């Protein structure tokens, strides 16, 4: 489904990603871990199409299409979803109006009829239960005045409504208490099917107790330096990232 080959990316001339290769198949959950500044969020941003990042080398194919050629909105319409690390507050734009616009633009792209108000409302109601989000929040402006947990829940709620094939959760767990974390993880797990895949970008192993990955990759200095099963995450939790750093510097010397 997603094939990343030797991806290099830079911001304002500073290289951040220095050759990432990754294959993701339908139904899989991949966790990307690594210390701060290793390039985890950059990878998520590059996949979603954030324009500040310049791809200097490599290629990314998504369902056979060159992802890097697509605008951010077309990536979303193709089925890529980025759950933001810091969801943006947008005063004056109602959550409902925003989501309806999004859903219908995605549907239009896919050649589907737009949803009328009634159908859209019932879709909202159905998905709201999934992430236990308060209806009152959705009558307010998008993310405005939401707590950290509410913002993250809203991300998963949007994901549920848009039904992406590839979800990228960028540090969705950071800043959440355990109750909110469980709700978010539960939502993600319920949305999991054999057809879609998830990339979980995280700093902490804790999230992976709830969203169990098939693969864990460790990102360090813009490269994937180690890949393994979920046990790798436990090892990292136990030993910290220094162990990886030493191993890397050991091999280079």
């Amino acid at each position, binding site marked *: 489904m997603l094939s990343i080959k030797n991806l290099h990316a830079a911001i304002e001339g500073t290289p951040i990603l220095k050759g990432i290769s990754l294959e993701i198949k339908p139904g899989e959950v991949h966790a990307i871990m690594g210390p701060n500044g290793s390039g985890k969020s950059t990878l998520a941003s590059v996949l979603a199409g954030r324009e500040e990042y310049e791809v200097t080398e490599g290629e990314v194919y998504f369902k056979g299409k060159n992802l890097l050629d697509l605008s951010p*909105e077309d990536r979303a319409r193709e089925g890529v979803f980025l759950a933001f690390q810091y969801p943006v507050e947008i005063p004056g734009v109602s959550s409902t109006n925003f989501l309806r616009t999004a859903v219908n633009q995605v549907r239009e792209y896919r050649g589907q009829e737009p949803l009328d108000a009634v159908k859209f409302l019932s879709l909202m109601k159905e998905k709201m239960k999934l992430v236990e989000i308060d209806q009152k929040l959705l009558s307010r402006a998008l993310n405005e005045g939401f707590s950290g947990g509410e913002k993250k829940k809203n991300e998963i709620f949007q994901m549920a409504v848009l039904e992406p094939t590839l979800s990228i959760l960028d540090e969705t767990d950071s800043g959440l208490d355990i109750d909110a974390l469980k709700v978010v993880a539960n939502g993600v797990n319920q949305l999991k099917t054999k057809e879609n895949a998830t990339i979980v970008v995280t700093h902490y192993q804790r999230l992976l107790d709830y969203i169990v990955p098939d693969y864990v990759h460790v990102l360090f200095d813009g490269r994937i330096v180690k890949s393994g099963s979920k046990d790798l995450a436990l090892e990292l939790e136990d030993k910290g990232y220094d162990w990886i750093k030493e191993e890397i510097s050991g091999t280079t010397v």
Partner: protein
Amino acid sequence: MTGSKKRSQEQQFKKFARFQLQMTVSTKKDHKLAKIFLSGTAAMQDLPLYSNLKKSAKEVLEVSGMPTLKNEEYKYTAISKRISDQLTRFGTPSSIDNLQKEIQGQQELFQLDQGYTLVCNNGIVDAHLSKIDPQLFQLQTLNELSKEKATQIGAIEKNEFDPFTALNSLCFRDGIRIDIPDGKIIEKPLLLVNFVRPDENGACIHPRVFIQVGKNAQLTLIEQTIYLGDDPVFVNSVSEWKVGQNAHVRSYKLQDGHKKNLEVSNTRSEVQQDASFTSIVLSLEGGMIRNNLSLDLNASNCEGNMYGLYLLNGKTHVDNHTNVDHKKPHSESNELYKGILADQSRGVFNGKIFVRQDAQKTNAFQQNNNILLSEDATVNTKPQLEIWADDVKCSHGCTTGQLDEEALFYLRARGIGKDAAKALLLHAFAGEVLDQLKEEGFKEYCEKVVHARLGGHY
């Protein structure tokens, strides 16, 4: 030899000419333009009711001339120069034939007509096309007024306050006075539509309105000027409001002309105890527009609200100068002006808040926010607060920036196209002002016009 001598003489002359040019530019007043208007009106028939007002206007103009960029109040808005440059005829056009037909072309606007409409033809009210209920309020033309009522014209917005006010006083041939009796609640809005078209007689129109709202009365006014054709034209209006005790007024103005229209409006409202005055000005299209809005909160417990939205493109220039004068305790003023500027457009905002020593417990808030969509667009914004009382709450703030890129990316990452995402954000920005429109019909009308603009050339 002679050739080069001649050349150098020419150069010297050019230098001198340039110097002379600089001299004229650097004078603070444009007397030439004032003289054109003064001589143009000299031969006009006297209006006995207003001979004093016109005499004082003449005196003001003779001394002050028309403002240039050297005048502090007009330092960003060279409207006098534009008038001199773009107009060739400084008289007043005669009335437009068959205005009924033009009204039919403005169906959407006239759908807002809920019973009370005033139609003006090049600044002069057309009694046949207007509909008002004499049970509810009294409408008179300025020339029909009693001597006593006529002396009130020009007593609120005085000639010496602004040269354009004096110019209006000098030039108007008639106008409107509306009196809302005490206690009368006018529930449906009054629509005031001025149709404007220059002709061979002139391209300058000076509408004059005086509205007195009695004690405990209530009125909503919706005002729009319809520019027929796109010939250069200058509309210089003066509106005076006398708002009685515990009366409540909402005044909406929609400015949606064309790229060659020049407009100056001077609006001043005297607000009495427990009364409120709310002004909302939407400026969507025009060549150069200058709005002077002044609220005199003359007694305690008054409320003055000033809202504005300007969506500019091309070379449109809109300047809003507002002034609120808190004279007595316990009054409140709220002000919010927002602008979206594209291309080489320019916005000017100047907000004066004056809190006098007696005006303790005043609350005064002011905000001006701008979004620049192009590198060539300009905003000059200046809050001016003068506070003489010590127990007050006053705040002001202004921001000017680009569209929030982070928000734009967030919307696009959800599948919303770039243009739609921009429109959504700009709408949200403008919405804060549009939300202040309380009349549903007019609000919908404005939202539609704004929507068309934001989805279009931005």
